[in-house]
């Protein structure tokens, strides 16, 4: 009797350990997500979250990757550097989390990048890096969006195609806008453009840029400036355009790739008509070339997005799609166990991954995935984004 009870316990323990090891086999790949789910960017990051959830559910329905599902763990950083750092640290303490996605915004990334470097965990950031961060050559941080160099190069192409000679730059007072302005001046002057960077800047919170623009008006008239570059992102973009037109200045306005967010047109109204900028492919995906792989990916993704959320997909949703795609692609290429180290190496070796934004390739010296080829010229016309082409500049 006692013997059988003992053997029963043994069998039970054996079965338990078996089931444990089995469940360990099936335990999900845990991904920490550290986004600005509250605060000024809440709606943007909500789109991003929805896109990531949509993609993860699709992968899990197919049986996951290597038979294991993906699991997203969301934390809200409230658009505060302190909370972003706290979330990041929390994720690094969980041994099962092998990767952290986020923050979204440029101004929060420096903190989480530093933590990622110290704790040796991959950190995927949505906003582009800027010159200062890039020159630190951090091993563990990767950026998704088009960076300042390629956007500036593309914008120089746009200026050349439009035959602008003199351009005045009015940039926001944050690091990314500053390096965008500097690169535009550098690349532009190499190609024979004359670029003036205004000493006046604006803050992210400014609701009126009229005074700064009044100061620039005499420069525009005296130097006979051909085009005005609103080097900024978010609400200041349309505000600058509105104030600029309200002063009765008629020269064309150029923008950054951040002008591709849908709410920009709603906010600027008529003042946005005729604004041209180097845009991301999802902004005008229905107007891409037939042989562009991004076109079919966007159409397919847009269909699923509409079915689920009822609205058209956009540039931001595209980033969410591509992030999960990149993660899936990298995990598949990992040989052996997926750890923080092996995943980083696999992600760094990504070559030509096809996403909604174009082709992503990373390398030891290149942690910004996209290239100049992944941008198209976009013009705002009739309240819509319209792709424009210039022979010789595509």
């Amino acid at each position, binding site marked *: 009797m006692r013997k059988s009870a003992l053997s029963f316990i043994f069998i039970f323990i054996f079965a338990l350990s078996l089931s444990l090891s089995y469940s360990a086999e099936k335990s999900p790949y845990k991904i920490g997500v550290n986004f600005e789910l509250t605060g000024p960017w809440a709606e943007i990051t909500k789109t991003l979250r929805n896109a990531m959830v949509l993609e993860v559910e699709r992968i899990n329905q197919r049986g996951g990757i290597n038979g294991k599902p993906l699991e997203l763990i969301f934390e809200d950083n409230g658009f505060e550097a302190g909370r972003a750092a706290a979330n990041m640290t929390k994720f690094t303490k969980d041994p099962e989390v092998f990767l952290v996605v986020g923050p979204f915004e440029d101004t929060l990334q420096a903190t989480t990048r530093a933590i990622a470097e110290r704790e040796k965990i991959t950190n995927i950031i949505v906003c582009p890096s800027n010159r200062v961060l890039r020159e630190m050559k951090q091993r563990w941080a990767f950026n998704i969006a088009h960076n300042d160099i390629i956007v500036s190069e593309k914008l120089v192409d746009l200026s050349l195609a439009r035959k602008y000679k003199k351009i005045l730059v009015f940039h926001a007072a944050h690091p990314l806008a500053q390096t965008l302005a500097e690169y535009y001046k550098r690349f532009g002057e190499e190609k024979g453009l004359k670029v003036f960077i205004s*000493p006046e*800047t604006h803050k992210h919170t400014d609701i009126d840029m*009229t005074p700064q623009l009044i100061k620039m008006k005499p420069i525009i008239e005296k130097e006979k400036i051909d085009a005005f570059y609103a080097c900024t992102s978010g*609400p200041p973009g349309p505000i600058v355009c509105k104030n600029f037109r309200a002063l*009765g200045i008629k020269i064309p306005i150029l923008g950054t790739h951040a002008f591709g967010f849908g709410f920009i047109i709603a906010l600027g109204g008529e003042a946005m008509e005729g604004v041209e900028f180097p845009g991301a492919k999802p902004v005008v995906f229905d107007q891409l070339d037939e042989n562009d792989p991004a076109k079919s990916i966007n159409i397919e993704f847009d269909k699923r997005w509409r079915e689920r959320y009822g609205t058209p997909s956009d540039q931001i949703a595209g980033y969410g799609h591509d992030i999960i795609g990149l993660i899936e692609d990298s995990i598949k290429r990992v040989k052996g166990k997926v750890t923080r180290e092996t995943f980083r190496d696999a992600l760094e070796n990504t070559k030509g991954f096809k996403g909604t934004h174009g082709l992503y390739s990373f390398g030891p010296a290149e942690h910004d995935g996209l290239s100049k080829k992944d941008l198209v010229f976009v013009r705002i016309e009739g309240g819509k984004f319209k792709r424009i082409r210039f022979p010789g500049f595509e």
Partner: protein
Amino acid sequence: MELLHIIPQFLISGLTFGAIYSLVALGFVTIARASQIINFAQGEFVMLGGMVTFFFIKNVHLPYLLSAFLAIGVVICLGFLLHLLVIYPLRKASLPILLLATLGASLFLSSSSALFFGTLPKALPPFSGKDLLEIGGVSLSAQSLFVLIATFFVLFLLYILSHYTHLGKAMEASSTDPLGADLCGISRHLMTFLAFGVCSGIGALAGIFITPLFYVSYHSGTLIGLKGFISAVIGGWGKYGGAILGGFILGVAESLSIAFIPAGYKDGVAFLILLLILYFRPKGILGSPFMDSRRW
């Protein structure tokens, strides 16, 4: 020479801002005159005016004018609610506690607005189709003129209210002489309640007029409320004329300062003017009915 050329444009821009600050300041003064409370949720009423109008136009598909009137109604109700839920229960508390309570209410209103209406900024179309006027090389948007008109219209209404109606006089009495008001049978709580309605209405009106010029987002009430408060203090805390004067001085000074110094210091100029006024004439330019003039 170049500077002289652009000064008129700076003045126009400054006057527009002056009108906005004045309009917000008038809301502060209305409450102060009826109850001495400093209502830091005033900026939030301005934000809600624009936000609720946008909601009615875009989500309920009502015409512009109707949406604007409905929004004023909604915000006035919120003003009454603010009094009933926050100010009235604290009626026995001291003024600093009430001030903190309104500050809390302001945070509550802006966060709730983010939850209800979303966090992306929203814009309203200008009132008139052709928005740009050009007078002698100086450009002016028609909307700025509307704001200017609205400011003086509100001032006129408040003047009528406080000088020619029993209600207005009763409101004022309940703050300047509480005991006297009590003896006359004036309900001070009712007066404060009504004053909250008036000030939230003014705030909503301000929001509807200025949103087409800029945009409205859930956190845009804070700074505009602060500037309105500064205007009211500069002009003379508790005086309608002072609110208007302070608003225009602040708007024009901020705008003109940019002609000489970089724009980043614009907000600093407002606080510098406030400091100077507080050092040398604490009761404000026109004097304040709440400050004992013998002390200053």
